[in-house]
């Protein structure tokens, strides 16, 4: 195992993941430096989502470990991992469709403040002015304020994605995982989201992003790792990766040299 530099927030160390003999991930070693945006790209079926699921605790790795901020995450349940400061945006937005948009944002704030479980029955949600103000501020920033009383399920797909992102951000996570945050979005919505993410990045958020859209990747990423057939074939600054012949081969099927 390689030495972990002090400013590395997340270290995916020598992770292998097999599904019934099928090697989904092999020898994955990934270090995410605090305050950077790290993109993981790769063709379909390269294992990007599997990697994310291993990090977030949804899938246990066959071997290896995920270390976040000095603690081993492997074997922890999703809520414990979130409580340690990792929030995740899903490929299809996971929101509380039956609740109002405002409550959607307030709920994660309660999880952050009160922990994984607390019976607080006698103080109404309405009286939690601090959390409410914070939620309303975020709603303003995300352009969802006018729809705060609506059921979240009635939002458009793009609004749902933004809502989910806001739900993650109110927790002030130490690490934000984004699973194709612009999939299925129009060009215009994609650009809005890129601006939003740039803004979040400016505030010093550490982000891991899985993305198909190269436009999104090259506008945001400080570091890019390329996954193909469950292995990292290249890793580095955007420009280096762009010129890497192995990446071209994986993406375009053109043999290198």
């Amino acid at each position, binding site marked *: 195992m390689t030495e972990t530099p002090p400013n590395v927030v997340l270290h995916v160390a020598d992770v292998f993941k097999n599904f019934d003999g099928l090697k989904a991930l092999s020898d994955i070693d990934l270090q995410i430096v605090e305050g950077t945006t790290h993109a993981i790209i790769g063709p379909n079926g390269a294992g990007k989502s599997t990697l994310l699921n291993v990090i977030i605790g949804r899938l246990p790795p066959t071997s290896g470990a995920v270390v976040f901020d000095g603690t081993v995450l492997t074997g922890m349940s999703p809520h414990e991992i979130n409580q340690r400061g990792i929030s995740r945006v899903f490929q299809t937005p*996971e929101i509380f469709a*039956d609740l109002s948009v405002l409550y959607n944002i*307030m*709920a994660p704030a309660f999880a952050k403040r009160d922990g994984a479980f*607390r019976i607080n029955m006698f103080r*109404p949600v309405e009286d939690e002015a601090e959390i409410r103000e914070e939620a309303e501020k975020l709603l303003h920033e995300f352009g969802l304020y006018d729809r705060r009383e609506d059921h979240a399920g009635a939002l458009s797909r793009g609004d749902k994605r933004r809502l989910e992102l806001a*739900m993650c951000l109110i927790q002030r996570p130490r690490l934000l995982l984004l699973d194709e945050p612009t999939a299925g979005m129009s060009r215009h919505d994609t650009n809005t989201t890129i601006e939003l993410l740039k803004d979040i990045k400016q505030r010093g958020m550490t982000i891991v992003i899985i993305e198909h859209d190269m436009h999104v990747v090259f506008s945001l990423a400080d570091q890019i790792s390329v996954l193909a057939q469950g292995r990292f074939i290249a890793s580095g600054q955007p420009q280096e990766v762009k010129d890497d012949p192995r990446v071209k081969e994986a993406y375009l099927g053109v043999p290198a040299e």
Partner: protein
Amino acid sequence: MFSFTRKQFTMLVVFTAIVLTMPIWLSPLGAAYPGLMQKFVIYAIFAIGFNILFGLTGYLSFGHAAFLGVGSYTAVWSFKLLSMDMIPALFFAVIFAGIFALFIGYFSLRRSGIYFSILTLAFAQMSYSLAYSVLTPITNGETGLLIARDDPRAIDTMLGVGQSTSGMPMPSLMGFDLTGYSGFYICALVLIVCFFVSQKIFASPFGMALRCIKSNQTRMMYTGFNTKPYMLTAFVISGMFAGLAGGLLAVTDPIAGAERMKWTESGNLVLMTILGGVGTLVGPVIGAWLIKYFENIFSAINTNMLNSFFEFLPDGFQSVMVTVMSKFVGEGWHLTLGLVFVLIVVFLPGGLVEGTERLMRRFRRSSDKPRSSVSSAASEERS
């Protein structure tokens, strides 16, 4: 703890007024007997508690009658062993039902959806059978658990109360008699307190978390909530409400029988909640009243009453009407209830409360001057 929004406060006041004036508005409906009104109130408590589980988390339990039964047995045992006072009886009924719910909930909540329902049903039916067989020393089997003159009643003996009266001792509250109207008003006060607690839970972050579980468990977990203890707490709370209802049944009539734990009782509870409106505050109460009304009033209507009711019709027509209608009343009240249930579920999804709200909204909208189609489409989506 008592902080309340204006809307909630108004709701509580209106609810209190409606419950306390039951003897007045139920008399034209022919149901203003203390015994029946006690049932109305007690089953409303039962349904409110059930709604905290089913309405908020969406977990459909088919075994809540077991907690009602445990509450009744515990209360009667408290009458036998400790005191004829209702306070210890209700206290222990709630505690024991809670412990029992903790046990059943711990196992049942390992599964969700239909498997959860089946597990709770299995546990409840098991309790029902046990009450008739192995546990007869505790439950007194088919006869039902009764109080007797020569029960020990440790607290009463110690304080030297309640021994002088002739005849069977009756449950009391600090020496006050609980028969008839006083019994009804005591139960009514308990119902109002329960309604208040349910309001608080609905408005609290805890209630919000339960709603989140119903809405999206995946998001819930990745938001840092541990869903298991939330659901178990909701399960135990609703079990305690059921225990309280069972305890009150024993207070108004100090006998406990296993038939209260039968699965049809659990089924009735589900009907009450769905009929009134799942997840609404007053819905379960209305549902409970409706079903108890049908059960007690509709079932009592006989052919003679129908004959006198249709007297104004011409002779032949009268007998036809009576023959047809008699199928729906008396023994056939289940048929009416079933039809009402089908009609409500089909035409008023969300039960009476939500259905009425929706109808009123539509009414208001059509009476408004027609707006642009966009805004009405948007509000349609919202509702």
